[in-house]
């Protein structure tokens, strides 16, 4: 670690952090070109359309911000896990549980409860819903050594089936897959403050979520708990002999991770539809993994990566006239694969170069 302060070592670390996302971006652009050429369109025209439909107009950008909000949460969830050396693949179930938690509290509050009271309560419920689902694999890992990759995947199915059962009872509006609408105060759409966003789903939960990202960054890099968490992620044995309880840190990390994923539930439930709906979380969990990887498990990077993947996702709708929007689904896979392959490759090449000097 002592060499890390020298300028060349710092450059090396920056290169190691930033090169893989760039490689992944390049590879995905090439893959995108191939998919676009396959339908006989010009890549330039398609990418231009994609930009116009996302960053080029207020509605499109509003939609990007809406999708970004959820992805920041699942991305942070995965990132916190990775920092502790754990792979949380359960963000989807945690997000759904957080959404239901927020909705249950919201429904229990009397109609007209001020948002100043309702929003914090529902937000805590979302954090708790996701946190409980994250706590379970934490304990399974710490107490019994059950690997969290498998348990979080399996728990996804269990949690989603359980939530579906809860909903199928008295909770849902008959003939639908959603609950009644919350009548307590909720979060305003961003269009209430800036009219051009009109019609887009982006809402004030973005602010809460960005605050969560900042808090996560603070927690990870400026508190002793965060230091312990990262120490466990880097060298569990060394951390243990240094007096850190690895098991407790795992449980804490996965609980926080689950809570962050659960927080994403407020975007849909408090900010957009005002009810819980089965399937609102679909896909956001796995995409959270992509976000955390491209964002290099750094909260600031996660926000940028979430913005990127949200743009890609919304951009699919914009290009549908020229290229099937399903292209972006394939590109998400390409980005993750390229990212996964380029991280160790970049490290290897950088080490080679350092050795050659």
């Amino acid at each position: 670690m002592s060499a890390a302060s020298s300028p060349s070592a710092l450059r090396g670390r920056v290169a190691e952090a930033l090169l893989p996302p760039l490689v992944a971006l390049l590879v995905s652009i090439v893959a995108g070109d191939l998919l676009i050429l396959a339908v006989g369109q010009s890549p330039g025209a398609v990418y231009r359309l994609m930009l116009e439909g996302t960053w080029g107009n207020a509605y499109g950008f509003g939609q990007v911000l809406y999708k970004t909000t959820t992805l920041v949460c699942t991305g942070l969830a995965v990132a916190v896990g990775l920092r502790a050396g754990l792979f949380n693949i359960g963000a989807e179930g945690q997000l759904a549980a957080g959404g239901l938690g927020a909705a249950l509290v919201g429904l229990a509050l009397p109609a007209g409860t001020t948002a100043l009271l309702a929003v914090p309560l529902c937000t805590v419920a979302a954090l708790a819903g996701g946190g409980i689902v994250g706590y379970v694999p934490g304990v399974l890992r710490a107490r019994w050594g059950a690997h969290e990759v498998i348990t979080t995947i399996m728990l996804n199915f269990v949690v989603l089936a359980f939530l579906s059962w809860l909903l199928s009872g008295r909770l849902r509006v008959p003939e639908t897959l959603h609950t009644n609408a919350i009548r307590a105060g909720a979060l305003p759409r961003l269009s209430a403050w800036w009219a051009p966003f009109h019609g887009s789903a982006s809402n004030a939960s973005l602010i809460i979520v960005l605050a969560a990202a900042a808090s996560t960054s603070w927690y990870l890099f400026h508190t002793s708990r965060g230091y312990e968490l990262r120490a466990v992620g880097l060298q569990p044995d060394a951390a243990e002999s240094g007096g850190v309880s690895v098991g407790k840190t795992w449980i804490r990390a996965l609980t926080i991770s689950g809570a962050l994923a659960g927080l994403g539930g407020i975007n849909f439930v408090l900010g957009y539809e005002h009810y819980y709906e089965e399937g609102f979380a679909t896909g956001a969990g796995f995409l959270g993994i992509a976000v955390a990887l491209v964002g290099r498990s750094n909260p600031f990077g996660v926000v940028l990566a979430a913005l990127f993947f949200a743009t890609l996702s919304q951009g699919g709708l914009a290009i549908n006239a020229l290229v099937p929007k399903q292209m972006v689904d394939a590109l998400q896979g390409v980005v993750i694969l390229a990212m996964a392959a380029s991280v160790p490759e970049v490290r290897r090449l950088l080490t080679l170069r350092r050795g050659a000097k």
Partner: protein
Amino acid sequence: MSIALAFLAQTLRIAVPYLFAAAGGVLAERSGIISLTLEGFMLGGAFSAMLGSYYSGNPWVGVLAGIAGGLVLGLVHAVATIRYKADQVVSGIAINLLAVGLTRYFLKLVFDSSSNSPRVAGFSAGTSTTALVAGLLHNPLIPLGLVALPVVAWLMYRTPFGLRVRAVGEHPEAAATVGVSVARVRYIAVALSGALAALGGAYLSLDQHQFTDGMSAGRGFIALAAIIFGRWDPMRAALACLFFAAAETLQIQLQAMQAIPSQFVQMIPYVLTIVALVGVVGRAVPPAALGRE
């Protein structure tokens, strides 16, 4: 009697895709490569099998095309994880997303549909009530699926290749010392796992005579659950597949009675897998080198 036979026949039909995918998964996992990819291999296999059958009008061409699709995805995963040392979990998730994306893209491109392909030639199991089990043989993929895991068991425990697979999955360094090419064995194991899981997918699309978006529907993860529940042993994994399929059959049969909420039956494979990992009744211990380079 006929109720029991109907139950058995339906269980076997449901089990076939699990059996194929678990056969592939056992091979890859025992060689040390994590099999989160089964879901994607299956989906890709289902789509390419449909495509092969669509263009040729012959379901056997579909089967071959399905195998080819699985091989391609398997090799992508193998190159990423073995050549480029990509994290196996991440690459697995990428393969799954890639399979979802590519099948959706080409479904739209070739058939201008976002939900399903047109009807293609396929294999139909007989549904006659008098010869329920014999009727299963009308779909050649059913008997193939039933022998997939026994064949893998034979391969694993009775052949030099199987010995190498187990060696590189447990002690890659030791295997390398005695001259086994770890990378080569793993390439073959992962490619085979792609082909086998893809056969499970081909079974789905050829049995239903069409491809529908996302038709693997989590079956690859159930197969993974069966592998873990079967403690990475092919025959025990086969029993787990049959057990999960029987639970599903029971749920379908009981649905009319509303005896147990279907959601709880759906949870069975996943809950049991967690229980197996926690080790209430004997701990499930993965191959020593699983997930490591």
